[in-house]
């Protein structure tokens, strides 16, 4: 079943094109990694999919509906959300449930749900700790558990593993793979770690706001393509059947 359909999406600020003619579609439970250099339009594309900005041309359909009508099935995590530093972790997680909880008051169910997801990622109890007292990696994990607690069909993550150590990166990526298979959740994320993009089923590689390459990881992650997009000479290393690329700095 088709979960995300991006049809000819372009976005212009004044006359400057940010992204242009993006087309792809995903099936339920698929993972898409959006790769590309800084400022190439990854975040813009994600925001359009989340319904935060309207594309200048083209359209996005999530299970056949525009994003504005699909709030309850999406979880979106910006790269740098402007979170109130004084708010404690539990208050933040409960706030993230908005729209998913139809009751006027906070219910016991909401609290249990939020705590269950929190303890999926944390051993220690920081529920009453102010957000600003956590490390940036822990902050990321808190917001991610809030995304999952919404029980979404589609998850849009802007740099989900930024600031995380390798343990937590592995935890998040394994988790994403898990839920996409088990719970049929479609996941779209942007990322700078090219190797990690191998967890996805599809990769969308952007260059100057346009699609440079789209397909499964083995077809997209090729040395000459990556070198062309990032404009840098790379060394290639193979690990199992996956490829890793390193810049020539040593």
């Amino acid at each position: 079943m088709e979960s995300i359909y991006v049809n000819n999406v372009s976005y212009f600020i004044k006359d400057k094109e940010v992204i242009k003619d993006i087309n792809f579609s995903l099936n339920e439970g698929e993972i898409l990694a959006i790769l590309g250099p800084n400022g190439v339009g990854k975040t813009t594309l994600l925001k359009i999919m989340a319904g935060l900005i309207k594309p200048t041309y083209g359209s996005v359909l999530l299970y056949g509906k525009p994003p504005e009508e699909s709030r309850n099935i999406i979880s979106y995590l910006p790269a740098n959300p402007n979170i109130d530093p004084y708010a404690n972790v539990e208050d933040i997680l409960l706030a993230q449930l908005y729209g998913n909880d139809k009751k006027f008051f906070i219910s016991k169910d909401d609290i249990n749900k939020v705590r269950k997801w929190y303890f999926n990622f944390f051993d220690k109890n920081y529920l009453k700790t102010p957000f600003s007292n956590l490390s940036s990696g822990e902050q990321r994990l808190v917001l991610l558990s809030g995304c999952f607690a919404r029980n979404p069909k589609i998850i849009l993550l802007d740099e989900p593993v930024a600031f995380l150590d390798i343990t937590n990166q592995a935890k998040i990526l394994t988790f994403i793979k898990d839920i996409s298979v088990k719970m049929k959740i479609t996941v779209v994320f942007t990322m700078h770690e090219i190797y990690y993009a191998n967890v996805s089923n599809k990769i969308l590689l952007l260059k100057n706001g346009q699609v440079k390459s789209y397909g499964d990881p083995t077809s997209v992650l090729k040395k000459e393509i990556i070198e062309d997009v990032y404009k840098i000479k790379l060394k290639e290393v193979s690990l199992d059947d996956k490829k890793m690329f390193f810049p020539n700095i040593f």
Partner: protein
Amino acid sequence: MKISVNNIISIILVFLLPISFLISLSTGPYSKVGFDQVIQAIFGIKLQSTYRDILNYRLMRTLAALLLGIGLSSSGLTLQYTLKNPLADPYLLGISSGAIFGVTIAEYFGYYSYYQLYFVALVGSLGSLGFVLLISAIFRSSSTTIIIAGISLSYLLSGLTTIYMIKLGPRIPSVLFWLFGSVSFTTLNTLERSSVLVMISLIIMFYNWKAINTLMLGEDLSRSLGVKVSYIRIISVIAASLSTAALVAMAGPVGFIGLAAPWMARLIVGSNFGKALVMSLLTGSLLAIFSDILARLVIYPSEAPLTAITSIFGAPVLIYLALKYRGRL
């Protein structure tokens, strides 16, 4: 249910409210009317009419202080959330400057009764609000734009007010009275009118509490959850300002409650907007009522302006709380 220190504090505060009422009714000049008379009145024992009048007056100003506490603290809290500024208070957007400017100008051009000035002040406050909304609507309503518009307007009006005040010459005291802020000149008429506006604004705040609550997540995240952030921001600013305007018109610009009471509430119950809103009603009204009691006592038998008391006694409390909970700030 686990009983935490904060739950105990909350329970104590709930019990303090009726106690504050009793003290407030028993305090003031005319020491013949004290605690005994209050108890007699509560149990329906007939008092002589002068005593009754005194009690009625004290009851009215206690209710005025209650309304002031409720309105200012809820407005302050709402603005702190919607403008994403922990130091926002109800006067940040120039509401009080509009009222004072209106009153000063009115006094300059003629003599008015308190009841007439009430409407002048209301019009002045709402004028300021209208200006701020207009600016933010024209230049897209980011919270910083709204704050800058409000603060600038505030300075502009204060400047003009000072000039007209000097022109007032010997009649300055009639306006100074307004500048200080006090519930001593409140009448039943203005109390009733203001309470309607405060109630309307509270209904708006409570009705939208969950949407306002998501603003702690930042604009992008909040919008992705389906919150119409610009709409919520504007309607919250209107609600908070409506309430503040009504209170400034009723009692002048009583300071500090709108900043301190929301913070006291947040330190006790956390940052959930709904919980903090309920708690701020309590901390706000207690702060206002006890301050009004002290205002009647510190320079007995004359009376200190309410703002002086809220500031003198509120500031140390806020500093103490901030230091005590500094891990959480």
